[in-house]
């Protein structure tokens, strides 16, 4: 019990962020028309590409002689970038079509 309470007070900022973001995430897309389901999914897909930042940190901290870390980190940066760039470009292509006839 003490452990749990300690954990909560040590990480309270993070816990606040998590809880608030859950509500924001739900609230923000609550009234999306079904027309936009696919682009929205694609856009959200690009946003979770933020994981690339973790890959950059891994890569940037790896010792220059640790080839395993360098190799895996390099792969992670490539995959993360694919997720981010591909995600935003695909979403833009979908939405470009919605705009054209206005």
């Amino acid at each position, binding site marked *: 019990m003490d452990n749990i309470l300690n954990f909560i007070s040590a990480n309270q900022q*993070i816990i606040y*962020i998590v809880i608030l*973001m859950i*509500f*924001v*995430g*739900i609230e*923000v897309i*609550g009234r*999306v*028309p079904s*027309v*936009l*389901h*696919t*682009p*929205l999914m694609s*856009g*959200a*897909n690009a*946003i*979770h*590409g*933020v*994981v*690339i*930042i*973790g*890959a*950059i*940190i891994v890569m940037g*901290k*790896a010792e*220059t002689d640790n080839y*395993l870390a*360098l190799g*895996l*980190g390099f*792969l*992670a*940066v490539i*995959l*993360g*970038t*694919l*997720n*981010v*760039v*591909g*995600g*935003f470009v695909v*979403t*833009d*292509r979908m*939405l470009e*079509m*919605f705009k*054209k*006839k*206005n």
Partner: protein
Amino acid sequence: MEFNILTLCYLIASVTFILGLKMLSNPASARKGNLVAAFGMGLAIFGTIFLYRDIESGERLHNYGWIFGGLLIGAIVGTLAAKKVKMTAMPEMVSLFNGMGGACAALISLVEFNHLSKEISSGGNNEFIAAHQSTILIIALGLIIGSISFSGSMIAWGKLNGKVKDFSFTGQNILNLILLAIALSAGVWLVVDPVQGYLLYIILALSLLYGILFVMPIGGADMPVVISLLNSFTGVAAAFGGFLYDNKVMLTGGILVGAAGTLLTILMCKAMNRSLLNVLVGSFGGNKSGGGAAAGPQGAYKEISVSDAAMVMAYANKVIIVPGYGLAVAQAQHVCHELEKILNEKGVEVVYAIHPVAGRMPGHMNVLLAEADVAYEKLEEMEQANEQFKTTDVVLILGANDVVNPAAKTDPSSPIYGMPILEVEQAKTVIVNKRSMKPGYAGIENDLFFQPKTSMLFGDAKKVLQELCAEVKII
């Protein structure tokens, strides 16, 4: 100072993610919303590269060559793939990119654990281990969810482009639960006893296998729901990365997508009037033999020639077109718009009735028709369309099946019973274009095709539409 600027970058990026999602859920601002989020992402990425400092040692990042090399390769390949993909293959593409994000999260966990286990084996005492137990837990959880998201997305991708077939066996659900339970307990074991580094690879293997078996039995029609769910999984995996580095932008972005993705998944399920559990456990493929679903062909159907169909439509007051997956595979959206224009010239009112799950993804039809310049106001959502069928002369169904199956309203034993459908049978005449009498995704017969007011117009949607255009023109 520099580090404070980075904090500011992260703050701005987090706000752009929220704003971006908000704008993406409104047709007028959607495109801008995507750009806003992309701008925030760029800010966060370049801020990290140039301004990041380790909290403990204050060291900057190095290996710039590798980082920029990876960014460059990923950016080029990603842009090319996203630009070149056909509109019909969009859903696969989203799944593929989603899998990349999951794999990225899993790789981060692998490298971080490697780093940690080196420190543990080189003189790590119990105190050191105790201080890092929560880190190991986060690494293990990030690995599990990232790997599931990766292998699951790859299977979903393969299924959507037809490379992977449905596959299920009895007890699969139980086996899946057992796999997940073992992976989780291996994670707990690793936290208690971090010296057992090999456990991480067991977790990796089990999670990958779980992802595969989890998606394998789910029917192609339910893939959108699965992709949306895996999308929110990757969001959570990114959030674990945020925990790991105490990085607020990863945390906000990840949790935001995790929550929004989960809601989107539920909204999609609602559009099909099914629960998420039903989609995941009681897949279409699994209980095909149950109920009166797999009954053989029933009664006779009536065929119509292209010229007769053209005649009926040219003399109608109002035509509603119901596009389905058949239109998408045939790439017939442009010629469909052509037919609409020709009919308009003849004074026929034409609108499109879009079922929320027509095609292979919610909104799939809207994207396709928008590509062909069909006006936004001509696309009617299901509720509005259902009010209009009574006053409609001709309904032209292009490769849609389950979304117009009256069994969803009338036959409680049907697997799609309860799904809201387009009530096309209220119109005066129904013309159905299909390639053959084969049932649709759900694998069930459609009564609609055997009703007296329905006529079948067999053939590839694009070819049939071209012929229809030619015929209507000369009337």
